[in-house]
């Protein structure tokens, strides 16, 4: 810059003023709620706040108590099992369904409507329906027994060791339609000529999918993975509706732990510490993804 005066150069704060005024809700949400709120919660997780937040620091006490609590350990274990199988099955079922839908079939719209409708339903509705279907007295178990297989046992919601799989079944029913849709969009984005080329080269279809199509859909898989994963960490309503965390504490999840300690047990410090752990879990998923997606290349 030379020392020369810029006649009429306006105050930079006032330029584009309407846009700035219109963005105030966004700025407040981003800075106060998302950034400020998160920092606030992390900050207060180092206090022994009970009914009300207060500034008496206890260092990592809350975290030590958290990781000593059987209920939290059960929550984490459940989240790990649920998360692992939910990811695998969502991706596999979603992709297989999408691949089937991509075979130039008839009634594609009908099938899509059927696969996707559960996604329009809330987790509460999903949980209650599956609670009923899996009810051992009247549901699947009793129906199979009445067909003659009298020793058949399938009562996930009443069996501590497998209750989390009962929740998994409901979650897959609700969510795989979305994965199918994302995968189908990915498949449709692939150049028809790839298929022609692999046909001419004589590559069997399953090999084409495995070695050509899936690697080409890397971006879709990663995006889907992130969507599923961030949903997994949040899982709450489904458990509340289907099992309320039971039997005992067998189907507790971290999100429920946070809610219960914040609003029912009036032990805010525990709630903050647990929610901070959830935040760290998400960061472990998101940060590498964001780095891969946006860190490598700069957008103009």
């Amino acid at each position, binding site marked *: 810059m030379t020392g020369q005066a810029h006649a009429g150069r306006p105050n930079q704060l006032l330029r584009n003023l309407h846009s700035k005024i*219109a963005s105030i809700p966004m700025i407040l*949400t981003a800075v106060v709620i998302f950034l400020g709120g998160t920092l606030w919660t992390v900050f207060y997780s180092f206090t022994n706040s009970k009914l009300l937040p207060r500034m008496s620091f206890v260092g990592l006490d809350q975290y030590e108590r958290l990781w000593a609590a059987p209920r939290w350990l059960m929550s984490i274990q459940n989240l790990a099992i649920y998360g692992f199988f939910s990811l695998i099955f969502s991706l596999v079922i979603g992709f*297989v369904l999408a691949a089937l839908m991509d075979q130039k079939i008839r009634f594609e719209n009908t*099938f899509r409507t059927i696969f996707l409708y559960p996604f329009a*339903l809330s987790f*509460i509705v999903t949980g209650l329906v599956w*609670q009923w279907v899996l009810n051992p007295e009247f549901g699947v178990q009793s129906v199979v027994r009445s067909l003659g297989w009298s020793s058949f046992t399938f009562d996930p919601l009443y069996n501590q060791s497998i209750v989390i799989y009962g929740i998994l079944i409901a979650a897959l029913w609700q969510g795989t339609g979305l994965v199918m849709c994302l995968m189908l969009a990915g498949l449709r984005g692939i150049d028809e000529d790839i298929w022609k080329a692999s*046909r001419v080269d004589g590559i069997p279809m399953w090999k084409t999918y495995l070695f050509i199509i899936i690697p080409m859909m890397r971006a879709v898989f990663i995006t889907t993975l992130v969507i599923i994963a961030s949903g997994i960490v949040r899982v709450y*309503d489904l458990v509340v509706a289907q099992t309320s965390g039971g039997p005992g504490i067998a189907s507790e999840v971290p999100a429920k732990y946070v809610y219960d300690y914040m609003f029912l047990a009036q032990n805010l410090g525990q709630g903050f510490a647990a929610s901070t752990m959830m935040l760290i879990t998400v960061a472990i998923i998101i940060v590498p993804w964001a780095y891969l997606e946006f860190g490598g290349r700069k957008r103009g």
Partner: protein
Amino acid sequence: MADTIPLKGQAAHGASRLAPGPQGRKPRPMFSSRNIMIYGALIFAAAYYLLPLYVMIVTSLKGMPEIRLGNIFSPPVEITFEPWVKAWATACTGLNCDGLSRGFWNSVRITIPSTIMSIAIASINGYALANWRFKGADLFFTILIVGAFIPYQVMIYPIVIVLREMGLYGSLTGLIIVHTIFGMPILTLLFRNYFSSLPEELFKAARIDGAGFWTIYFKIMLPMSLPIFVVAMILQITGIWNDFLFGVVFTRPEYYPMTVQLNNIVNSVQGVKEYNVNMAATILTGAVPLIVYFVSGRLFVRGIAAGAVKG
């Protein structure tokens, strides 16, 4: 391998003679083994997805004696609508026995203003980000998008405090604000991407014509963007209607939305379980998003895929 040989053979034929008759591949017969496998798998999957809906409906149309005797998949012998009436009008949550209708109207009173407010704010945000970017705007937007991945549990308590300070904690207005806040990331992204996809020259032409921020938004952008507003509406109506967590955290029992009330009715420990009433209540709660889903069709797909759209 087997597939390629006839292809090559055909190409050779096509080159050597120009005979009349059909060219190209033979159409596949409808009942080839390949088709049987594909349709078989799809129909099996469809049955799995439809089963719970079917069970819900038939259960809700049976009387309790029939439910206790029969299995859940059998169609009702004697159709009764009494469970529906009871679910709607007289089912009890705690001491209140006025059915789901209260929750329904609460949800209506929550969903409509929340949808309107969240879309209004997010569309203006998206427009400002797409067309009137100012220094720092991208930073706020990035925080907003990152915030979409932060578990709600992390931010809930600070919001409780803010709302309490404003005197809105427990009120419908407070819940509407919460829905607007948490709808903002995805909707802002949706609108930003949409407005960015509109030709930039249109915006420039309007500026040359002397139109400012609001004139361009209302006179140029809005009329061109009705489809994306419908997509956003679908997204918000279903999302807000289906919400449970915010409803239970931010409202008082008399304002509980339908999902919360449904859960309280079905999972209440008192009294005899009336499965038919429970299922009727469940269908009633799922009805609004289901209707939105079936009516909107492809736009719904576009709405949920919006989450996958990269910024």
